């Protein structure tokens, strides 16, 4: 462990102390004049400018909204036939795009993530292990926990592979369909040029793109990274920025969806917003801005942001389904004509 730079010099320290003294004097003056409860906070953390979205950037509008079947609602999955699967409470529930409920699977613990294979097999991630169900909701298998610190937050299925994002271990796990662990991907490796995942809170997503590469969020580095299924690092896009073109706060994006043409849909917390990026990662437009998620934005402010958050999936018609974890609602967004 080493320090990259010194802390305050004596002069800086004295400057800061003088600043603190000046502030205390200002506080004393304010006390003398102020009423017991002031309307304005002189120490306000002001991001109001960033909470307004330029309407010219918004390309989508809401065409439907329905309540998540169970709460607290956590994540969405999309089956190949277009059926949505919603993780909420101790259940995974199948829901049609119009919001009609179907199959419901009861679980022993809250589901964190879900993915559905071509043959209808349903993979459900609980916090520390995977359970597998057939298309009728009968449990077929329960896999061993990958690690003591595991916190599984995303699943993606491709042919014979199941990819699991483990936020607790900060690793992407590759399994075969029988539950045999094949590889640990994305761990820091200087020789292979792999930067390693920075996952400060339980938001870590993976998708398999039509080009065969994995798209993995790396929230602490404010970007989306591309990996081969063998774990070779192929590149990354995204940058930290509070402005609309970048990823805000300490750690975003928190989740990711893929449009049929390969473009990306990203979700952020803190400043809850959903945006579209091109297949190569250039910012294109806003699906829904902070104004659309007032309760979600406030939830993050009151205690901490690990309970807020958004999730999204995109279907074959390009509709984007957004789950607001705070209001437990799903919004169906369509591109404006």
């Amino acid at each position, binding site marked *: 462990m080493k320090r990259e730079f010194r802390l305050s010099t004596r002069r800086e320290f004295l400057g800061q102390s003088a600043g603190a003294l000046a502030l205390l004097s200002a506080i004393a003056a*304010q006390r003398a004049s102020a009423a017991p*409860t002031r309307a304005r*906070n002189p120490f*306000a953390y002001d991001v109001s400018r960033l909470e307004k979205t330029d309407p010219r950037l918004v390309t989508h509008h809401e065409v439907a909204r329905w309540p998540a079947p169970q709460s607290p609602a956590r994540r969405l999955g999309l089956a190949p036939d277009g059926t949505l699967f919603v993780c909420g409470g101790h259940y995974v529930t199948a829901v049609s795009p119009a919001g009609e409920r179907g199959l419901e699977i009861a679980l022993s613990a809250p589901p964190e993530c879900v993915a559905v294979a071509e043959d209808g097999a349903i993979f459900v991630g609980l916090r520390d292990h995977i359970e597998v169900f057939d298309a009728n909701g009968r449990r077929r298998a329960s896999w061993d926990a990958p690690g003591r610190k595991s*916190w599984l937050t995303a699943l993606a299925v491709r042919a014979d592979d199941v990819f699991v994002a483990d936020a607790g271990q900060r690793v992407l796990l590759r399994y075969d369909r029988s539950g045999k662990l094949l590889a640990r991907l994305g761990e820091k490796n200087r020789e292979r040029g792999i930067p390693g995942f920075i996952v400060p*809170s*339980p938001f870590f997503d993976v998708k398999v793109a039509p080009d065969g590469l994995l798209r993995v969020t790396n929230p602490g580095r404010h970007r989306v990274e591309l990996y081969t299924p063998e774990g070779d690092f192929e590149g990354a896009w995204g940058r930290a920025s509070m402005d609309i073109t970048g990823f805000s706060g300490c750690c975003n994006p928190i989740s990711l969806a893929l449009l049929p043409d390969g473009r990306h849909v990203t979700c952020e917390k803190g400043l809850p917003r959903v945006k579209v990026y091109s297949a190569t990662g250039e910012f294109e437009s806003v699906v829904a801005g902070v104004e659309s998620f007032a309760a979600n934005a406030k939830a993050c402010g009151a205690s901490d942001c690990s309970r807020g958050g958004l999730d999204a999936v995109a279907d074959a018609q390009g509709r984007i389904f957004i789950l607001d974890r705070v209001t437990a609602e799903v919004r169906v967004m369509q591109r404006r004509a």
Partner: protein
Amino acid sequence: MNASTPSEPTSRRAFLRHGARLLGMTALGALGGALAGRSRSEGWVWQIDPAKCLHCGNCATECVLEQSAVKCVHAFALCGYCNLCTGYFEPEPNALTTAAENQLCPTGAIQRTFIEDPYYEYTIDEELCIGCAKCVEGCSRFGNGSLFLQIRHDRCVNCNECAIARTCPGDAFRRVPASRPYLLKTSHAQ
């Protein structure tokens, strides 16, 4: 990698035991001495419930003491050790450096220390902290909520009616046993 909850009142002994690991408090020795001196082992003291705090700024301005008895504390177990710490940096910093213009804290009370790429540790200098909660709002809004306010009982004079509690819009102040004077955030993951 945590979700956090405020805990039940924490005993002085537990607080001191976990202090070095859990909290960025710099004056634990002084704290122990001061508490012993005031012999508050019986009775009740004021404390802030971090889950109810709205980060309104009153804690900096309403305490009867010249410098507020309320300080920011840091639950390291909840911290992401982020490079871009939203409790440390202005919402739109020019650069991720320790230059004063990039810092959120009005008194420069937060120290940023490089650990290893890309992790940084943040500690609070209590002599400089005025309890304004600006960093708490930044950390709660965008981070893991590992920064929060607590009344420090080596400073608080335990007013019958806490002057801050009277104006607290979050109704976050409550009486806790003097033997367990802190309401710490803990981790579900632990």
